[in-house]
């Protein structure tokens, strides 16, 4: 195979790799000559969440199984890794290179998948979801109660610097760990991608589409679910291991409901239908949680609004939106959407600014002012107790919304015309 062909076929992977390697340098502190620890940690979090969300999507997107307890696999993987690291460190074990430590997490997740999966995969659909909810609560509660393995509230602390690296790297700096993380998350993601191309992966799709029919082509859906759960456990465990490497502490929070919810959100916002959706989703969710929360305490509200809007207008997730453009792009007429997009963007910005301003004014009035914060919106200091900012914000929000509605209609006409055209030319939708 010639390299050009490989590039054409696998450009997405290459693009992801390049972005992951290059992105930290956007935040590089040239004056001090060091990486931004925050940016590196945030990107590490994105990478490991992407692995976790992909693993989640092995159940949700690919096998149609909604899980509320996926974090138990993640958490157990993380604890396994922490214990392994401590064991390696305590006994100076040299035959286990630092680079292979995440495998311990994978094994942990796998074991947990074998046990928890055996119970959960007895059922499908809502019953499955509810069993995972119950298991999730039980594991989280157990993690607080049993000190020996889970270390209680303080969790298990560990040190990733174990000096058994094949490459002689200490992994003390965030950048070194980030590189290891890139390697492992790429490796895990590619493996998960390949899994979708195997008989098990396809049959998992089949049980998602039509669970009954699968039985009559010779497959036991329960076995399919079980295998899929175990394998998802392996990858969730690896994600957990990466978590341990980044933070060097594992607490019960790693297997609590919030973590499970995050995986669900990432997978859904990114889009469970395609393979790459959850990666995108993880980036967005982590960005919102750790990025936007720096600036406003109302980030949960924004997150809520984002869900509602996404669910109502883009149930296919971000990847779904991109996918909708495929037929138009194939016709080579994507350019024709440029102007409508720009026209829609203006009222979006206006309305969005209004909405954000209203929310921020309100939070500042009720919470922020008392905390002694000075409110400034869009780099302008604003007095939330006077009437004007409110009036402007409300007007912006309402006007933006109305304008957007009108513009949306126009946009839809244009869009539908293009899609019709694509259909007429026989380009699959």
């Amino acid at each position: 195979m010639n390299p050009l062909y490989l590039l054409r076929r696998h450009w997405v992977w290459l693009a992801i790799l390049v972005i992951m390697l290059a992105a930290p340098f956007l935040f590089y502190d040239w004056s001090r000559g060091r990486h931004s620890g925050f940016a590196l940690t945030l990107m590490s979090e994105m990478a490991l969440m992407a692995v976790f969300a992909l693993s989640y999507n092995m159940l949700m997107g690919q096998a149609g199984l909604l899980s509320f307890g996926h974090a138990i696999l993640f958490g157990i993987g993380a604890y396994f890794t922490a214990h392994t690291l401590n064991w390696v460190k305590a006994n100076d074990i040299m035959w286990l290179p630092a680079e292979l430590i995440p495998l311990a997490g994978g094994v942990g997740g796998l074991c947990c998948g074998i046990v928890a999966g055996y119970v959960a995969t007895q059922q499908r659909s809502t019953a499955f979801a509810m069993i995972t909810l119950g298991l999730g609560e039980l594991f989280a509660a157990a993690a607080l109660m049993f000190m020996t393995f889970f270390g209680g509230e303080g969790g298990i602390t560990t040190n990733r610097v174990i000096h058994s690296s094949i490459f002689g790297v200490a992994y003390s700096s965030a950048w070194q760990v980030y590189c290891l993380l890139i390697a492992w998350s790429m490796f895990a993601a590619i493996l998960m991608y390949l899994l979708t191309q195997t008989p098990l992966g396809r049959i998992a799709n089949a049980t998602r589409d039509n669970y009954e029919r699968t039985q009559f082509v010779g497959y036991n859906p329960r076995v399919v679910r079980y295998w899929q759960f175990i394998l998802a456990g392996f990858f969730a465990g690896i994600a957990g291991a990466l978590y341990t490497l980044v933070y060097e502490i594992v607490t019960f929070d790693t297997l609590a409901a919030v973590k499970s919810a995050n995986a669900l959100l990432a997978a859904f916002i990114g889009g469970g239908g395609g393979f790459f959706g959850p990666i995108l989703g993880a980036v967005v969710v982590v960005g919102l949680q750790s990025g936007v929360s720096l600036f406003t305490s109302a980030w949960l509200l924004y997150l809520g609004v984002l869900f509602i809007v996404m669910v109502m207008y883009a149930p296919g997730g971000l990847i779904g939106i991109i996918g909708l453009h495929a037929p138009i792009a194939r016709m080579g007429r994507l350019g024709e959407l440029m102007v409508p997009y720009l026209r829609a963007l203006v009222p979006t910005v206006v309305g969005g600014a209004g909405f954000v301003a209203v929310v921020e004014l309100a939070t500042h009035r009720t919470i922020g002012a008392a905390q002694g914060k000075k409110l400034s919106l869009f780099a302008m200091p604003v007095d939330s107790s006077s009437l004007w900012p409110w009036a402007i914000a409300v007007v912006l929000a309402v006007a933006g919304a109305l304008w957007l509605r009108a513009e949306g209609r126009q946009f839809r006409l244009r869009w539908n015309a293009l899609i019709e055209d694509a259909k007429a030319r026989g380009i699959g939708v």
Partner: protein
Amino acid sequence: MRFGRTIISAVAAGFVAVAALAAQAQAQPTIKIAYTDPLSGPFAQTGDSNLKQMQYVIDYINAKGGALGRKFELVPFDNKSQPSDALIALKNATDQNMPFIMQCSGSNIAAALIEGVNKHNDRNPDNRIIYLNCGAVATELTNEQCSFWHFRFDLNVAQKAEVMVKALPKSTTKVYLLNQDYLFGQSVQRDVKKFLAKNRPDIQVVGDELIPLGKVQDFSPYITKIKASGAQALLTANWGPDMNLLIKAGIESGIDLAYYTFYAHLTGGATAIGPGGEGKVRSVMSFGENVAPAIGNAEAEAFTKGFRAKHNFDFAGAVYRTIFEHVAAAINKAGSVDPTKIAFAMEDQKMKDFLGYDTWMRKDDHQIMSAYYVGVFKKGVKYDAEGTGLGWEVAATILEPDVVQPTTCKMKRPRS
């Protein structure tokens, strides 16, 4: 086809981020203190009320000149009760070369921060940071896990347990323990028993219960059990709903019981307990607004009154004043904002707190020794709590020498 709106909604999401970016504060030569606690979600209340009080204290300290002529600036980070997010906040703080990070709520997060700070300071000797602990109380943190970079300004579980035991009246002979089933609750359980055996061998522990954290919705069965045991006092370190519901259930059933708590005086407690708790609920606290009038310290009273006037809410954050005064003094003594120098300066630093009581930052384990109080929930106090008409009257004051306990800490200090 709702495609237009779809795109737009996605754009809007990105937009929030950008808009918020613009709202970032501008840099000034202040001494920045990162503060991380939950500021959103179900536990946001903790972070919110802490933040208000810290800000009030910082304004006061700054008005008096700050340290080395520089003012303090508080930079809040929301950690959503997640250790990982607290560590991200730590990275953020070190990126901006902030000399301090402060955290109050949750020993899981505190443990993560101690480890995180230790490793960071080890690996980046040119960019160190001090962790000021304003309320994570697990005993381990200044014993097995003690760190040179960690300074705790609240008493630890064992100390609080001893204070609680000392506050038990002579007439009490039967007590019941009920705690949350995790490290914190378990260590309270262990320590209270230890100090009961040591200080009050006459007291019999008639019941000893652990409950899953935040899972119990109805406490009446526990009350029934407590009643059956014949206990006179209930000793609990529960917090949040686990404490509120427990006390409510007890009061409602009308059993004759005294409640000894660690956290009833914190925000939300008074409202939840309500007038039914009159004279029954006691709390081990680092400060109460009625302390100053009780000892006739007008200046301190004015200080707390100022907060009330500003926020129309109670002030409980004397510990923040102690923290910032210690920090300011240490910076002045070190003559620089180099965290290593400040940390050395802070060791064994002795100061009077604003009430005039001694405080001592012990060198051995970086645990503060300060006066502690036991308050009883009563009508007719000078300053009521949360507008309920009832407030915390000082029932006992335990001074600094009496809270000192031995430590197992083997502190590792940096060479420079």
